């Protein structure tokens, strides 16, 4: 049926009205279709002939009827079907045809209604859909907005947190400072209160004392009570206080201040000259260091070298001229420091260049054996040190082994024998020494005995001597004449001194010459070899005296060194001991020495 409808507009033989209705039909498939269908139903009836006549003609009426019955059956209207009025006739039975038409119209009306409803539904649905879409988009926008807001709020919250932290830190530091200040204040306060209390106590004491004094009234006068005035510590007299004196005091004070300033200035000058010398030295050395490098450095240092030549020249002349000037001149000082700075800068630049060169070389020529990087150099050093240590240990071990080898070159027996020999030798030596020691001891014992005997004898003799002296003095006193005796006595003074010290046999002869001078007895115990008289006994005396100090001194050394074992000294001492034995008569004098030395 659809096909049939579409093929209709191609027939333009239908009238204008028809074309318009057909165009209406093609234009509006929807609402207007109903109207059009209403409108078209009326003209359709008019033009139905033309339309239907296309479908049904006089010839194919039964076919049409069949076809229409089939269509009706398919629509569900099987009950009504069209019949022909007469078989093979061109007419149609009206009643079934009308019923069929009526049915078809009903069906059509129903369809229209449902179509309308459906269209209404569709409209509604489309409007709700639109509505929903709009609200959806609106909500999306809202969501985005709120998300942005949230992130903004997050950001502000973070910043505020940060601020809180910093403020907390500040608060903490402030609190600490407050604490510190509080502690300071506390200590100061305690100090103040302590001082205040002390002052208060003192004031109280003052008040008390004042009241006591006012009550007491009998004032103890202050006074000084000295036995006698002392002299001044420096022995001079004290001066009156005059203007000259005060001026002199001022002068003294200024003098001492000035001398102190001068001394400090001198030392500072010395220091300055020293430092200047050092700086000069440094400068010279730096110039020296930089100058040979000039030839090795090329290119970039050409300018430097030129500069250097100039500055060198300038400085050399500068030096010559400056050194003649006073070194403490400020200009010279500045000159020196500037030149030092310049040189130092050059040296530094040079060092930096060298460093960069070295690093470059290191990077590029790593494999080059001449430029050894620092680490390998250090490793090498370590290795060499270890080697040296090992070698040393090895040598030490070798030495030990060699020593052992030498020591145990014999087998065990001979080694033991040798050791025995050594010990035997030592034992022999020790025995010898002990023997000598015993002998010496015996000698000394003997001597000591002799000395004690001599001392006893001496005591007795002394007593006898005293008695003799007393008697002689008495005689002398009784028989004294003014001049001659005294002269004789004085001339024989020296003699008497000697004779007293001479041998006991001679003592008897010299009793006459004894005087009551205590000095002579004092010289009894101290040997005075300088006393020279023409008495032959003095030579002997000298010899004796020389012997005696020698022996006593050697005895002293003996006392100190019992253990000395050299045979030469032994022989010496033995000889001396023999001497002593021989000179037992002289023991008095040695005893005297002894006494003197002991006391």
């Amino acid at each position, binding site marked *: 049926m659809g096909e049939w409808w579409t093929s209709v507009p191609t027939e333009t033989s239908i009238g204008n009205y028809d074309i318009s209705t057909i165009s209406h039909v093609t234009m509006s498939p929807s609402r207007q279709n109903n109207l059009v269908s209403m409108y078209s139903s009326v003209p359709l009836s008019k033009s139905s002939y033309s339309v239907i006549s296309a479908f049904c003609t006089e010839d194919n009426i039964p076919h049409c009827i069949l076809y229409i019955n089939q269509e009706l059956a398919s629509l569900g209207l099987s009950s009504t079907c069209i019949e022909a009025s007469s078989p093979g006739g061109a007419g149609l039975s009206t009643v079934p045809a009308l019923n069929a038409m009526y049915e078809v119209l009903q069906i059509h009306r129903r369809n229209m209604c449902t179509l309308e409803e459906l269209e209404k539904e569709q409209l509604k649905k489309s409007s709700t859909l639109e509505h929903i879409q709009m609200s959806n988009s609106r909500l999306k926008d809202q969501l985005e907005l709120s998300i942005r807001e949230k992130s903004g709020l997050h950001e502000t919250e973070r910043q505020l947190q940060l601020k809180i932290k910093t403020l907390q830190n500040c608060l903490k530091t402030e609190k600490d400072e407050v604490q510190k200040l509080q502690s300071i204040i506390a200590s100061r306060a305690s100090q103040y209160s302590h001082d205040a209390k002390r002052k208060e106590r003192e004031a109280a004491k003052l008040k008390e*004392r004042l009241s006591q004094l006012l009550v007491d009234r009998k004032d103890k006068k202050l006074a000084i009570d000295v036995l006698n005035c002392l002299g*001044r*510590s420096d022995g001079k007299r*004290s001066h009156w206080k005059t203007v000259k004196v005060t001026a002199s*005091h001022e002068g003294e004070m200024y003098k001492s*201040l000035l001398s*102190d300033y001068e001394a400090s200035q001198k030392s500072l000058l010395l220091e300055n000259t020293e430092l200047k010398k050092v700086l000069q030295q440094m400068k010279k050395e730096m110039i020296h260091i930089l100058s040979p490098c000039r030839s090795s450095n090329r290119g970039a240092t050409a300018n430097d070298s030129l500069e250097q030549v100039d500055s060198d020249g300038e400085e050399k002349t500068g030096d010559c001229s400056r050194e003649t000037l006073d070194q403490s001149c400020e200009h010279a000082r500045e000159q020196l420091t500037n030149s030092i700075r310049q040189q130092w800068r050059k040296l530094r630049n040079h060092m930096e260049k060298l460093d960069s060169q070295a690093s470059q070389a290191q990077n590029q020529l790593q494999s080059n054996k001449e430029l050894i990087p620092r680490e390998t150099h250090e490793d090498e050093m370590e290795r060499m040190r270890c080697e040296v240590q090992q070698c040393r240990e090895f040598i030490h071990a070798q030495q030990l082994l060699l020593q052992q080898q030498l020591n145990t070159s014999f087998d065990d027996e001979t080694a033991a024998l040798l050791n025995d020999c050594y010990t035997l030798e030592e034992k022999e030596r020790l025995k010898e020494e002990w023997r000598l020691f015993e002998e010496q001891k015996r000698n000394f014992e003997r001597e000591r005995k002799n000395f004690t005997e001599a001392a006893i004898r001496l005591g007795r003799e002394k007593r006898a001597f005293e008695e003799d002296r007393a008697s002689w003095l008495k005689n002398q006193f009784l028989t004294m004449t003014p001049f001659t005796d005294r002269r004789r006595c004085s001339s024989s003074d020296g003699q008497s001194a000697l004779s007293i010290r001479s041998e006991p046999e001679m003592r008897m002869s010299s009793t006459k010459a004894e005087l009551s001078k205590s000095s002579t007895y004092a010289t009894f115990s101290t040997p005075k070899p300088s006393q020279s008289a023409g008495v032959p006994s003095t030579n002997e005396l000298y010899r004796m005296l020389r012997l005696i100090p020698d022996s006593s001194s050697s005895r002293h050394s003996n006392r100190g060194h019992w253990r000395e074992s050299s045979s030469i000294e032994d022989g010496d001492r033995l000889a001396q001991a023999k001497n002593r034995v021989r000179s037992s008569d002289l023991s008095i004098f040695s005893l005297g020495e002894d006494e003197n030395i002991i006391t």
Partner: protein
Amino acid sequence: MNFSEVFKQSNQLCKVSPDGKYLATCVQYRLVVRDVSTLQILQLFTCLDQISHMEWSSDSLFILCAMYKRGLVQVWSLEQPDWHCKIDEGSIGLVSSRWSPDGRHVLNTTEFHLRITVWSLCTKAVSYIKYPKACQKGIDFSRDGCYMALAERRDCKDYVSVFVCDDWHLLRHFETETQDMGGLEWSPNGCVLAVWDSCLEYKVLLYSLDGRLLSTYSAYDWSLGVKSVTWSPSSQFLAIGSYDEKVRILNHITWKKIAQFDHPATINSSKAVVYKEVEKRPAVVNDDLSLHNITIGATLFNTQSKYEICPLPVQIPVTKPDPDRANPKIGVSTLAFSSDSRFLATKNAGIQVQSLSWHCSGDSLVLLGKEQLCICYMDTDQEDT
């Protein structure tokens, strides 16, 4: 080390004469003079009351004995034991007494520091000095004995008066820029006077002999300040010990700080060597005490102690002072230079050392603790200061 027998003394008054020949000790009211080498009693003097202070004159000929309660000073002569001198301050009282450098004048400070009376033993004359200041160190004599510096306070201001010791002539009188002067000290060369403030303010002022202010030094504000000050023997350095446990050294040319030393409780510096005394006491058996009584006595005296080097870091045992009290026991309290100015010995107050002093040759140091005596020898080959 050998020790002599124990001699009695009172008030810790026991001094050797400046020439080193005699030793004077005070026992209650008696003054005993002994010979230093033989410790035999040479002289015995009796004073009128218990002796509070005793001092040798600079020429070792006289000894001053002060009795503060009675206000009396007695001077005794060694050459002439019969010579006597008695100074009575009367009702004005006596707080301190000292010799002048020439050994012929006695300076008495009266009670409440009302005045200083200068008594001359040569002329029996009296001079008065008014308004002396009562502070840690108010009087100092220069080393050559020519000048005396005295701290004064008038009208709530501090002054310094410089007197010529010859005739007690006032040479200079100038005001100092201190709030409350704590003390003053001459430099050994007698040309500079160091004046410091009380502990409430850290301020050290340096005045030249003629009263000009040379320099001021202040290390910090507000905290407690200077505790002790000492000059080096060459007058080149001034060491200042303060309550913050640091020592600062100024040089005499610019009067600026050249060095600062800390006293940390833990020693960590690689240059420091710490010696620790280790005592080996033989164990005492506790059960048979009756039998071991004698041996215990012997073993206690046989404690051997030796010094061993402690590995760093070392914690020094320090007693914590009470910070709330006035004049707290913290800070550097004692400073002493060795005689060649090479070494500086300092003592921080928490350490239990009573006194320290250098030998005059400058290479050994004696430390006196409560129960111990320690002598330290410096290795003079080392270069470290």
